[in-house]
């Protein structure tokens, strides 16, 4: 999984809105699995803003 983003699997509906807005093509949605690519993710937070149910947040604890 990822270090740069915190993903709450129990809230997530796996709808893919985050994938649609990600400027870096860093998110992969499977049927019921979300994978954030730390190599691509810049922690811009647009997926956080777009998520319909607050299932994503930027992980402030992870080193940049």
């Amino acid at each position, binding site marked *: 999984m990822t270090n740069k983003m915190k993903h709450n699997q129990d809230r997530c*509906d796996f*709808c893919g809105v985050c994938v649609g807005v990600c400027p870096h093509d860093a998110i992969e949605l499977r049927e019921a699995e979300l994978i954030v690519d730390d190599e691509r993710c810049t922690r811009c937070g*647009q997926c956080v803003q777009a*998520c*319909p149910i607050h299932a994503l947040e930027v992980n402030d604890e992870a080193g940049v």
Partner: protein
Amino acid sequence: MKPAYDVIVIGGGPAGSMAARYAAGRGASVALFEKDREVGVPVRCAEGVSHAGLAAVVENIPSRWIAQKITGAVLHAPSGAEVPLHTDQIGYILHRKIFDYDLAQMAAAAGVAIFTRAHVTGLIMEQGRTAGVVVDHLGERRRIEARLVIAADGVESRAARWAGLATRTALADMESCAQATIGGYQGDPEMLHFYFSRSMAPGGYLWIFPKGNGMANVGLGISASAGGERSPHDYLEAFLARFFPGASILGRVCGGVPCSNTLKELAADGLMVVGDAAHQANPLTGGGIVTGMIAGRIAGETAAEAVAAGRSDRETLRRYPKAWLAGEGGKQAQFYRLRKFVFSLGDEDYDALARSVLRIPVEKRTILSIMKSALLHKPSLLLDAVKLFT
């Protein structure tokens, strides 16, 4: 699964099934890959469609698709004022699961090989042109070649981006949505309700779409850049608590609709993009079933012709965006400007608009007359309104 097809369609929604069906119907060998267990599930949709729109894309409308016939609509202003609309347009709330299954069946009957739990993880590229896909099917990764790929992979589309098309949705243009299907709905089953209010749904609107048998889809979309600390889920909870306290919730779903201006490029060498992946929903209403099906049909026909001609370059595929823009797609730019206008209004504007529309006799209260009232607020809209409604 064969090692190669003429055409591979990614995604088994209405746009993908139509594309696959019309490509196969004109002689191409076609595979359709759906990432989920079944086509049509989960239903991330309010399920509303007009009779005229649906009748334009299918030969007949079987009753098993229809959850509820719709004969009217009420707009709600922030003040609580209700504006009933006169409409002679019949619409439906669909059973999307049954609908999507049937569209996939029609594709299968035309010869399409459909695979579910088939998740496309990449494209095969040859000298800058798409030449197939990498697909994970039931735990096995396979490379399947194709002369042409049609990306119908929805709001979460990546395939078109991999082929170099700019299909990422800007935050302001993404309608981020949450919906609950409630039981015990006591409202008029044939009446839609729309609520416009910055405090209830900033950059979007709330809807109640009755589904028959005392059920209703209650949901909202907000612009992804407008919500701030509150998510669509939070806004929906507030609405349900206020208007349907204690209602049983039979289903919940999240989703999003790209509501942008029409995309500049819908085709690359060896690839076309259709449906939500191509931002083809109406940017004002977010309705995208019929528009996606129209585009899917054109793309499918274009694919078959391209295969028959032995060409899949961007120039050959240009038939698709040309036909799309000459028809339904040609209205998108105006709807996008209307979207910008409607969602730029404050609650006082909505209230003032409601007051002026209520002065119009109900039998003359059409979308057109509402737009005329809106024009008093912003005359620069006149050009768009004229193009759309005349």
